[in-house]
Structure formats: C-alpha cells, structure tokens
C-alpha cells in the first residue's frame, strides 16, 4: 500500500506502524463519573466497519509523525491523510 503523507507525499505503508481506529485520539476524562466504564469502551470496543475507517498510522521509518488515514477496509482505497496532531487539536477544540 501507499500512504500519501501530507508532508512527504506517497510513502510505502511498510515504513509505517499501524495502531488502529483513530477514535483512540479521544481519551475519556479520568475524573468523570463512570470513568472506568468509559475507559473500558475506549480501550476495547471498536466499530470495525466494512468500509471507510479513520485509523492511526505511525511513520516510524520516516518522520515519526502519527497520521490519521481514512481508508476503505474493503477496497483499501485511501481517501484522506492528515497529521494526527492537527486532527487531535481540531477535535479537542470541537468537543
């Protein structure tokens, strides 16, 4: 596979390490009422869709950026790639 790095252009996926669903960016609040339940869901439950999935890839053999890659799990087609830090900041502000 090829991942179009937002800064470096197309790079072979073998340079990256995969983590999983980009929902992992949204870590629950440790002080909330049901924190333990929230962390259990956060840690263990996944949508695992057959179709577009936002997922985290780490450019370990590249620039060490974490990326949010939107990839179709049935066709492997990649439709968008962003720096995870940009996504995290944007979505942290949004919530």
């Amino acid at each position: 596979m090829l991942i179009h790095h937002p800064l470096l252009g197309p790079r072979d996926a073998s340079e990256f390490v995969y983590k999983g669903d980009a929902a992992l960016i949204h870590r629950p609040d440790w002080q909330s009422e049901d924190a333990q339940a929230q962390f259990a869901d956060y840690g263990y439950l996944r949508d695992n869709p057959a179709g577009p999935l936002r997922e985290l890839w780490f450019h370990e053999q590249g620039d060490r950026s974490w990326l949010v890659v939107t990839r179709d799990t049935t066709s492997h087609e990649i439709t968008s790639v962003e720096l995870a830090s940009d996504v995290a900041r944007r979505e942290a502000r949004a919530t």
Partner: protein
Amino acid sequence: MHDLRAITPLGRSEPVVEVHGTVTMTEVTDVALASVAARRGREPETLAALERVLGDAPPAPGCLGGKTLTAFWMGPDLWMIEAPNDTHEDLAAQLAALSSGAMSVTEQTDAWCRFDLTGERLADVFERLCAANIRAFQGGEAVRTTIHHLGCYILCRTPAHMSVIGARSSAGSLHHALRTALVSAL
C-alpha cells in the same frame, strides 16, 4: 584537552574507503550532528535562529539545505544540523546558546554512522536498496526510509554524491548491505 582516542562506527581507528566499479564508498566521521526541534509556539524564533546558522531558510520537508552549515528535515519543526566536527565538536551546546529556550537541541553526532557514495550510476545501486525514487533526485533531497530493515536517512547532495546515514550500532550491517548492492548492481 582529553586524551581518549575515538574509533569509527566500523570499529577502526581510521575511516574505511572502498572503490567498487564506478563508485567510491567512504565512511564519514568528521561531521558533528545536532537535532533542533522548535518549542511549541516558538517556531518563528527557531526558524530565525536556524536561518542565521545555515545562512539560508531551514530546508522544507524531504529536503537538505543550508549554506554556511547544512541541515536536513527530520520531521515537523525538527531538523538535523551538520557541521565540521573539528570546529563544532560541541555543536549542540553552540546551537542551544543561539536562542533562549526557543528550541530543544539534542546532540546526535555519535548516534549515527555515515557512508558517502560518489560516482556514476548511483541510482542503479540505490534501486536495489530502498524504495525512494532516487532516479528522480536532482540534489537537495533528504528522505528517511529503510535499507535491509535499517532505518536510514538518504541525502542527495548531488546525483553523483549520496550520503547514507544509519544507526551507529549497525554500521557493520549497513556497510555490508551497501557493499553487496554495489557489487551486485555495478
């Protein structure tokens, strides 16, 4: 002045130089390295400081640049500065002094080994080593990728002069891989 004698990444007292066909491969040990990362919110100061050091704007992603000193892009707001070791053995300290806490500087000189390949048909060699599109390089490119399971920076100073920078501890394996490709491709 201290009296400890340095050894090269390949474990010798002198750098190793080899000629294979049209290409000369040289172990480079006389370059000091330091990484510079911009502190959050202080990117402009960092850019300015680096511009003073390099005599040019810090290189863009995927690039190698600089005039008075050279540098290459390592990551977002992160660069590696190259300088002659004899004049800049404590390069990190020199750079840190340039800006009051605007940037995080880390000494990198001995974290790496470097092999320079000079001569013709370098693309024929590198296409057996890594996925980077070396044939399209014109000079000024700096990519990080893997060579035989080793993470390396590949710097194109000119199409006839490439530097491969890899982890110092595996200098032997990297040198072996480069030599094998030279023999195989040329």
